[in-house]
C-alpha cells in the first residue's frame, strides 16, 4: 500500500500522468508498480512497451544491474543489492528540503555517505532501505538513466551520494528522480548553484539530453555544464584524495576539461576560471620541483594567474633561475592584469616565435625574478556547492607567489606590446584574408624572428650570402629564395620586404624605403651588407647628390654603348673619394652602382631629380661627369652629345662641355685652386719647380734649334776661319751669287730696280739670288744679309764678320 501511496503521490504531482509515463517508459520500476497496483486501463499496451524494453535491456545494462556489478571504489553504504528490477525497489527519497543545514567539516576527505539524508519533511513513513549508492561511471562507459543512454560516462549515477557539506552531491544523477518528457538545455533554468536533485524534471531531461548528445552543443546553458563539471570536480578533488586509483581518470578528465573549455570557455568566464583551477589542481598534484623547466600546459585565461604557473614561476624565483621564454609567454598570456591585443591572439604562433626571440634579445637567457616574501598557497575554491566551505588547499613550502610582484610582468608586457605592434600589420592582413597567412606577401610584414623555422633558415642563408659580398638578382629570384612561388609581391609587400631585410642587416638597392621606384619582378636588385645602425642611410642631401651623380654617370657611361671597366672603376673611385659621406653611405652607393651597371637610368628620368640642386652642386656634378667621360681615355661623340644633354639638364651652358672636356683631357689638375681674390694669390711652389724644369727642357731644345749663342755679343770672332778665297764670300754660294753678294754689301740700301738690273747682268733672278744669299748667310752667320723688298736693306755690318 505504501507503494500505491507513493504512486498516487506521483500521480498527484504530475498533472499529466500518462504523458509522463510515456516519456519515462524506461523506468521499469514505476511501470511495474503501476501495473501491479491498479491494472489501469490500457494495461495491455503498457505491457507491450515493457516487453519491448526488456528486449533492449539485453544489450544495455539496467541501472540496477550496474549498481550491483560495480566494484566499490569508494565507501559504500551497506545497502542490500538487488538483482533485476525489483518491484520492491523503492523510489529514491525525495530531495530533502533541508535548507538550513550546513556541514562545517574542515576536512574535505571526511566524506561518507550519510544515511541521514532522508527527507524529513515528507510524511512518508520510512525511507527506502535500499537506495543505490551513487557511483562514478568511468570515462567511456555507457550508462542509461531514465530512458536516456549516456554514452561516455564521467558522471555519478545512483541514488545517494553525499557531499562534504552534508547534502546530496549536486552532481549525482539520481535515476529515481522523475524526468520530464522534454527539456531544452538552451534555456537558462537552473539556479546559481545547480543541482541535479534540485532541478525540475524538465531541467533534468535537458541535462540528460545534453549529456547524451556528447556534451558538445555550444548553445547549452552553462548551468548544465557546471552540473557536469561538479562531477569532474568531485572525482578529482574528493575521490582522488581518498583513493589513488581515481587518479587514473585524470588524463581523461583533463582532456574533457580542455574540450569543454574550448566550447564553453569563451562563453563563461566563471566556467573558465573553475575549469582552469581544476586543471591547475590536477597539474599541481605531485608537482615536481623546477616545474619551470617543463613544458607549460595549457590553461584558460582567467582573472587569476593559474596556480600552476605561479608555482613554476615561484620555483624559478626560488632557484634564481631565468624563466624560459615559454613560461614567460604563458605568464603574459595568463596574466589577469595584462591583456594581449588582437594581433597577438589572432596570430598565436607568430606571436610566440616573435616573443621568444625578443624575450631572449632583451633578457638573454631569461628574466630572473627576485624572490619575494609572499608565500604561494593554492586554495582550491570549488565550483560545486557540495564542496563549498571545505578548505581545499595545497601549500608549497617557501615557494614565493610571484603575482605579488609587478615589475616582472611589466617587463614581459612591454616585450609583448612591442611584439604585438610588430605583428599588427600582419595580423590585419591575415584578418582580412586568412588564406594569405603563409604567403610571402603576408610574411614580409612579420619580423623575421616570427617566421617559421625553415623560412627563417632561408633568410639566414641569404644573409650569409650577402656577408660574403653584394649580390645582384632579380626581384623574382629574391622572392623565390625566400620561399615564395606564388603571386609576386605588391608594392607594399616589397617595401615591407625591404624593411625586413634591413632588420636582417641586408640592404637593398633600389632603396625602396628611401622612395625609390618599386622594382618589377624582372628588375634587378642588389643586396648588400648593411649594419643595423646604418638603416635609413640615403636620406642625406650629400648622399642624394652622390647617387644622382652615379646615376648620371652610368647613363653617360652607357652613352658609348658599353659600360666599360674603367668607367665602373672611375665611379667606384669617386664613391671612395667623396667627402662627407659615411662609410654606410658609401656601401650603399657601391650597391647602387652595381644596380646601375645592371640597368642604367635614362637621363629623362633623372631630370626631375636635378631640379632642387644648387648651382654649386650642379657644377660639381658636371665636373664629375666630364672626368668620367674622359676616364676611358677617349670622349666619343656620343659621350659629348650626352654630356651636352646633361649640361642642359643641369641648367649649365651646354657650350661649356667642350671647354670642360678639353680641360679634363689636358689634366684637370691644371686648374689650380684659385682662392678668392681677397685671399691673395697662392702659388704652388712644387708646380712652379716642375714647370721651371719643363721650361728649362724646352728652352734647351729650342736653343738647339735656334742656335742662339753663336759668338758672344756679336764679337767679331772668326767663327769660321774660312779659306778666305775670293770666290766664296759665303760658303755654299756659286760664283755669280758671290759676286752679287759682294755687290750687295757695297751699299747699305738698294732700290729693287737697281738690283734687278744688276742681277740680270749677272744672269741671276733677283728673288732667287737674294734667297740663296740669305740662306747662305743664315747658315754661316745666323742672320740674313739683306731684308725688305723695295728698298732692300743690306746688313753691312755682316761684312765685318765675313771679312774677318
Amino acid at each position, binding site marked *: 500500500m505504501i507503494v500505491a501511496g507513493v504512486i498516487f503521490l506521483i500521480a498527484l504531482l504530475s498533472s499529466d500522468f500518462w504523458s509522463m509515463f510515456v516519456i519515462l517508459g524506461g523506468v521499469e520500476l514505476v511501470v511495474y508498480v503501476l501495473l501491479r497496483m491498479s491494472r489501469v486501463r490500457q494495461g495491455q499496451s503498457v505491457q507491450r512497451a515493457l516487453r519491448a524494453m526488456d528486449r533492449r535491456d539485453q544489450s544495455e545494462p539496467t541501472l540496477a544491474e550496474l549498481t550491483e556489478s560495480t566494484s566499490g571504489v569508494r565507501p559504500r553504504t551497506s545497502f542490500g543489492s538487488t538483482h533485476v528490477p525489483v518491484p520492491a525497489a523503492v523510489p529514491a527519497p525525495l530531495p530533502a528540503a533541508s535548507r538550513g543545514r550546513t556541514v562545517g567539516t574542515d576536512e574535505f576527505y571526511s566524506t561518507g555517505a550519510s544515511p541521514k539524508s532522508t527527507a524529513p519533511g515528507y510524511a512518508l513513513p520510512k525511507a527506502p532501505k535500499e537506495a543505490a549508492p551513487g557511483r562514478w561511471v568511468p570515462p567511456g562507459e555507457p550508462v542509461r538513466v531514465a530512458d536516456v543512454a549516456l554514452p561516455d560516462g564521467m558522471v555519478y549515477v545512483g541514488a545517494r551520494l553525499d557531499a562534504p557539506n552534508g547534502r546530496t552531491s549536486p552532481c549525482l544523477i539520481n535515476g529515481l528522480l522523475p524526468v520530464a518528457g522534454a527539456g531544452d538545455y538552451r534555456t537558462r533554468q537552473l539556479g546559481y548553484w545547480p543541482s541535479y536533485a534540485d532541478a525540475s524534471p524538465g531541467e533534468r531531461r535537458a541535462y540528460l539530453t545534453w549529456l547524451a548528445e556528447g556534451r558538445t552543443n555550444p548553445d547549452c546553458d552553462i548551468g548544465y555544464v557546471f552540473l557536469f563539471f561538479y562531477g569532474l570536480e568531485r572525482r578529482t578533488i574528493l575521490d582522488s584524495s581518498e583513493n589513488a586509483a581515481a587518479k587514473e581518470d585524470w588524463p581523461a578528465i583533463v582532456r574533457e576539461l580542455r574540450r569543454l573549455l574550448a566550447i564553453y570557455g569563451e562563453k563563461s568566464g566563471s566556467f573558465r576560471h573553475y575549469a582552469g583551477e581544476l586543471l591547475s589542481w590536477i597539474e599541481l598534484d605531485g608537482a615536481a620541483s623546477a616545474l619551470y623547466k617543463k613544458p607549460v600546459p595549457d590553461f584558460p585565461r582567467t582573472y587569476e594567474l593559474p596556480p600552476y604557473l605561479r608555482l613554476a614561476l615561484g620555483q624559478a624565483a626560488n632557484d634564481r633561475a631565468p624563466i624560459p621564454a615559454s613560461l614567460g609567454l604563458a605568464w603574459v598570456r595568463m596574466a589577469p592584469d595584462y591583456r594581449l591585443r588582437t594581433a597577438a591572439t589572432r596570430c598565436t604562433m607568430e606571436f610566440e616565435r616573435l616573443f621568444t626571440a625578443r624575450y631572449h634579445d632583451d633578457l638573454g637567457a631569461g628574466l630572473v625574478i627576485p624572490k619575494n616574501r609572499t608565500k604561494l598557497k593554492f586554495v582550491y575554491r570549488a565550483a560545486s556547492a557540495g564542496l563549498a566551505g571545505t578548505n581545499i588547499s595545497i601549500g608549497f613550502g617557501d615557494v614565493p607567489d610571484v603575482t605579488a610582484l609587478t615589475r616582472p610582468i611589466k617587463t614581459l608586457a612591454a616585450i609583448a606590446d612591442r611584439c604585438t605592434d610588430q605583428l599588427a600589420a600582419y595580423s590585419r592582413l591575415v584578418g582580412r584574408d586568412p588564406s594569405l597567412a603563409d604567403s610571402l606577401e603576408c610574411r614580409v610584414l612579420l619580423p623575421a624572428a616570427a617566421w617559421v623555422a625553415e623560412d627563417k633558415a632561408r633568410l639566414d642563408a641569404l644573409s650569409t650570402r650577402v656577408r660574403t659580398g653584394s649580390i645582384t638578382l632579380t626581384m623574382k629570384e629574391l622572392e623565390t629564395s625566400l620561399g615564395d612561388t606564388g603571386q609576386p609581391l605588391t608594392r607594399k609587400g616589397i617595401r615591407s620586404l625591404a624593411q625586413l631585410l634591413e632588420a636582417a642587416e641586408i640592404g637593398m638597392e633600389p632603396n625602396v624605403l628611401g622612395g625609390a621606384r618599386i622594382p618589377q619582378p624582372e628588375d634587378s636588385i642588389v643586396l648588400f651588407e648593411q649594419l643595423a645602425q646604418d638603416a635609413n642611410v640615403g636620406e642625406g642631401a650629400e648622399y642624394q647628390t652622390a647617387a644622382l651623380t652615379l646615376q648620371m654617370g652610368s647613363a653617360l657611361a652607357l652613352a658609348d654603348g658599353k659600360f666599360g671597366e674603367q668607367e665602373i672603376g672611375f665611379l667606384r673611385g669617386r664613391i671612395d673619394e667623396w667627402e662627407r659621406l659615411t662609410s654606410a653611405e658609401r656601401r650603399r652607393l657601391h650597391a647602387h652602382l652595381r644596380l646601375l651597371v645592371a640597368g642604367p637610368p635614362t637621363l629623362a628620368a633623372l631630370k626631375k631629380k636635378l631640379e632642387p640642386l644648387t648651382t654649386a652642386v650642379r657644377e660639381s656634378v658636371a665636373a664629375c661627369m666630364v672626368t668620367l667621360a674622359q676616364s*676611358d*681615355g677617349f670622349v666619343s*661623340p656620343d659621350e659629348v652629345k650626352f654630356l651636352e644633354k646633361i649640361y642642359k639638364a643641369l641648367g649649365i651652358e651646354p657650350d661649356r662641355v667642350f671647354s670642360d672636356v678639353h680641360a679634363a683631357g689636358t689634366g684637370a689638375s691644371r*686648374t689650380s685652386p*684659385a682662392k678668392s681674390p681677397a685671399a691673395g*694669390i697662392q702659388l704652388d711652389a712644387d*708646380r712652379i719647380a716642375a714647370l721651371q724644369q719643363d721650361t728649362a727642357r724646352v728652352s734647351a731644345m729650342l736653343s738647339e*734649334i735656334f742656335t742662339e749663342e753663336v759668338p758672344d755679343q756679336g764679337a767679331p770672332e772668326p767663327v769660321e776661319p774660312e779659306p778666305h778665297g775670293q770666290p766664296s764670300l759665303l760658303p755654299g754660294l756659286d760664283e755669280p751669287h758671290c759676286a752679287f753678294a759682294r755687290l750687295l754689301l757695297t751699299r747699305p740700301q738698294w732700290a729693287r730696280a737697281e738690283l734687278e738690273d744688276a742681277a740680270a747682268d749677272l744672269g741671276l733672278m733677283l728673288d*732667287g739670288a737674294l734667297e740663296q744669299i740669305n740662306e747662305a748667310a743664315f747658315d754661316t752667320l745666323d742672320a740674313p744679309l739683306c731684308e725688305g723688298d723695295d728698298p732692300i736693306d743690306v746688313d753691312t755690318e755682316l761684312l765685318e764678320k765675313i771679312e774677318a
Partner: protein
Amino acid sequence: MNAPIRPKDRDAIIQSLRAGVVPRRGQHLIQVGRSHEVEALVADIDRVADGGSSFRFVIGEYGAGKTFFLNLIRTIALERKLVVANADLNPDRRLHASGGQARSLYAELMRNLATRAKPDGGALPGTVEKFIATAKSEAEKQGAATEQIVRSRLEQLTELVHGYDFADVISAYCRGAEEGNEQLKSDAIRWLRGEFATRTDARAALGVRTIVDDASVYDQLKLMARFVRLAGYAGLFVCLDELVNIYKLASSQARSGNYEQILRMLNDSLQGTSVGLGLVLGGTPEFLMDTRRGVYSYAALQSRLAENTFAAGGLVDYSGPVLKLSSLALEDFYLLLRKIRHVYAGGDPDHYLLPDEAITRFMEHCAKRLGDQFYRTPRTTITSFINLLAILEQNPGTDWTALIGGLDVERDEGGKGDLAVEPEDELASFRL
C-alpha cells in the same frame, strides 16, 4: 737663361706683346713649359724634312696660346729649312667652298709663304727663282737649255693632279726670266698664288687650261710641297689657325665639305702619300668636339681622331693627331711674367725692373680686377704688365707698389667671339 738676348728679338717680342699679338720671332724666349708638345711638333717637322708628312690638330681654349704655339712651331720649321705657309681661316677663307673662298685661302697661304731668309712671307718668287737658278746652273754644266732641265726636274710633279699645268707655269716663269718678260713672270706667280679667277685669263696669259680653283686647293698644296723640296728646301709646313670658323659656318653642307677636305689631309698624312707636307690646324675644343657642328659631327673624321684608349688615367699620348693645349694656370702665368721681365731686361738679371714679389702683387691686382680666372686669357694682362715695365724703365726710381695699384687692366672678351655662330641663313634677321 742668362744668355743675352738680341735687342732685335727683344724688341720684336716686347712690341708684339704690347700690341696684344703673338710675336713672330723669339717665341722661344718666353716659352713656358709644354716641352712635350713642342717635342712632338719638332718631331713632326723633322719627319716632314725627311720627306714624310704630318697632321695635327692643336686644340686649346681661347687664350691657351694656340697662336703662340703655332708661331713657335712656324719659327722652328723655318729654322729647319722648311717653307712655311700660314693663314687664318675666316668666313671668306675656307678649305672648301664654291664661291672662291677656298682659293682665297690658298692665295693667303701663298702670300704668306715664308722661308728662313724671308720669314715675313712673300717668299714664293724667291722659291721659284731658286728652283730655276739651280736648274740654270745645272743647265750650264750640262750645256742644255734651262727650260729643258726645269721640265725634266718637274717630271715627277706631273703624276700629281694639275702637275702638268704646274710644270707649265714654272716653265713659263723660267721663260719669262730668260727672255726678260716681266709680264710672263708675274702671270706665272699670279697663277701660282691662285690669283687667276677664270680659266680664260689663265689660258690667255700662260697657255694653261686650268687654274687653282676652290676644288684644287689641297692638290696645289701637295704640288707646292714637292716643288719646294725640288727647290732645295726641306718641305712645306702649313699652319692653319682659327679653324673654329668652319664650326661657325651656318650651312651643314658647307661644314661637311670643309671637314671632308680635312679628312683628305688626314688620310694622306696618315698614309704618307703627301710628300714633305706638314699640316697644323689650330682650333678650339668646340670646333673639335661639338657633335652637331664640330669635327665630331663628321663621323669618318671622328673615328680617325679616336684618342688612344691607353692614354687614360694621367697618361698622355702626344703622338695622336690631336694635341691638346691646356689653358694657362696660375703658375704658368707667373713664370711667363718672369720670362717677360727677363726678356725686357735683355737677358740680364741685373736690369730687372721688378722683384719677384712685384709679379705676385701684380697678379693679385689682376685677380681683383678680373676675377680669379684672369690668367686663362692672358692677352690683356700681359699688355698691362709690359706697360708697367715700360713706365718703370722710363721713370727710374718710381715705386712699383704705387703703380700696380693704379694699373688698369682690361677684360679680355675675345673668347666669346669664338662661340658666336653664324645664324642659319633662313633665320637671319637684321635691324636698322
